[in-house]
């Protein structure tokens, strides 16, 4: 077996709480090859973001570790660029300056002209050159996320980490951005780890879908290989049998094997709040009458 590009081995994560340690992750083992597009999918609170943050180096795993190109990951760095869920552009810098900051930081030896060219090249990749002098507050959510991707790409990362990059976008914008990401992945052949809630998105974009069990003690439940030829077209695939088979497998995992069970406590809370509302109503009516 050839050596993997990125390897998570025995990753476990405990968070200290007042009621003792909370074990969020346990025994997460994953080997990722160079150029592979991996999706992490699972119910909210299952520790997907924790896995991503451990790979990014933003969190330190309490057990196990992450190895990138034979080196252990122990701190964040631009070779593992992150696209954050809510874009995280610096609101006081223009689109250009936001990308430029990343370029300045990662290419210190290049000339100013080269850096400038590199910024523009990356803005071109995400089709955002027209708005280069705008502030983040002046562009739409989808555009902001495009710039966030451009900033991450500009760092020339070995692994691109995306934390629900399209979660806050409407369906049409999301589809546009998914196409852009596929296009970029086809050109640059980056290794990508993406967190998503969206089954279609996972199947459309990924080479492998990593499905996670529910927390606490979350771990990898199943891994699904998506053997669909690239480039993939969303409309043609909608009728494709292999595509639908993959969708079915993921849906089955999420809604049958790992059905999210709301804890008794939460259900009770909801019930009591309804009771409260019901109790308040007659009072209101009586004051009205008075």
């Amino acid at each position, binding site marked *: 077996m050839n050596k993997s590009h990125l390897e998570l081995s025995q990753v476990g994560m405990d968070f200290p709480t007042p009621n003792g340690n909370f074990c969020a992750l346990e025994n997460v083992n994953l080997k990722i090859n160079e150029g592979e597009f991996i999706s992490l999918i699972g119910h909210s609170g299952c520790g997907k973001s924790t896995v991503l943050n451990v790979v*990014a*180096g*933003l969190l330190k795993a309490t057990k196990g570790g992450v190895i990138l190109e034979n080196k252990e990951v122990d*701190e*964040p*760095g*631009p070779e*593992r*660029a*992150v696209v*954050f869920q*809510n874009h*995280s552009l*610096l*609101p*006081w810098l223009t689109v250009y300056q936001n990308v430029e*900051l*990343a370029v300045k*930081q*990662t290419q210190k030896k290049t000339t100013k002209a080269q850096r400038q060219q590199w910024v523009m090249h990356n803005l071109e990749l995400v089709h955002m050159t027209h708005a280069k002098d705008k*502030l983040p*507050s002046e562009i739409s959510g989808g555009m902001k996320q495009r710039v966030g991707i451009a900033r991450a790409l500009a*760092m020339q990362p070995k692994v691109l980490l995306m934390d629900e990059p399209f979660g806050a976008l409407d369906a049409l914008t999301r589809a546009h951005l998914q196409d852009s990401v596929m296009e970029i992945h086809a050109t640059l052949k980056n290794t990508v780890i993406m967190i998503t809630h969206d089954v279609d998105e996972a199947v459309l974009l990924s080479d492998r879908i990593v499905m996670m069990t529910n927390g606490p003690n979350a771990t990898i439940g199943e891994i699904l290989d998506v053997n669909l030829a690239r480039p993939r077209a969303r409309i043609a695939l909608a009728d494709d049998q292999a595509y639908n088979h993959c969708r079915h497998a993921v849906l089955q995992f999420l809604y049958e094997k790992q059905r999210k069970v709301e804890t008794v406590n939460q259900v009770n809370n909801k019930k009591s709040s309804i009771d409260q509302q019901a109790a308040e109503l007659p009072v209101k009516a009586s004051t009205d009458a008075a």
Partner: protein
Amino acid sequence: MFKQAVLPQVTWLKLPEKVKQAGWLNVLGKISLPLIGLCIFLMIWGGVAQNIDTSLGKFPGPTDVWQQAGNLISEHNAERERASAFYERQEKRNQARLEADPSYQPKIRPYTGSPTFFDQIWTSLYTVFVGFVVASVVAIPLGILCGLSQPVYTAVNPLIQLFKPVSPLAWLPLVTMIVSAVYVSENPIFAKSFLTSAFTVALCCLWPTLINTAVGVSSIPSDLVNVSRVLRLNALTHVIKIVLPSSFPMIFTGLRLSLGIGWMVLIAAEMLAQNPGLGKFVWDEFQNGSSESLARIMVAVLVIGMIGFALDRLMLLLQRKISWDKSVVLR
């Protein structure tokens, strides 16, 4: 070209009559309502003042105060005339002596008349400015440090809470003694009373900036901090590129509060330190005890209020000018 010039006029003409009226009413309200408020205040003031008898005569009403304001201006002008006459006389005398004896080195002696009301305003502004700058230079870096590091904040916070509520009047004797002991110089550039007042102002207006900076820095969105970590920005770049812009609105709010407090504290400090500013003016008039004194003090009160207001507006304008976030509502 023609289209561009005419278009705005045409659209303006097309505005429905109701909207235009509402607009005018709005503007009228914005001007007239404060005026009405002012008139009511003046009437109450005038009415009440007549019924207060003090050992220095009746409490001054609006008319007395207006009169004294005029007096203060004419006193200022008279003093300026005297000063220029004084310099003119010296000039003539020097010229005459030079003609008689070419080797004579001409000397100009400074005019030593008493400071006028306007000189005192300038002294006050200068003093508060120096105190404010000293406080800001200490408070902003310290605040950033406190905001970035929880241990530092935990260590410094009790001290902030302890010293924040201390009145300037309590600091002043200590500051006076320290300045007298430490600032010993053959030909001092600054008067001791000036330094005492400025440092007292600094001690009192340190805290709002310090607290606001610390809070602003510690509440930077964690995503932005993560961006900085992923980019591996070093500490200095992190502060300049991420921390300062992000906490700028909070820092500026702190600065505005500080300047307001500084201006308030200054008057008390000047009274006790005898720094020739507005505080000393009020104190001297009070000690003077003439029948005009109360009206003159009232002029000072109004001027202090107007300057305080102007300083606050000035800070606001400055904030609007340099803040990246133009959408934020500033008040």
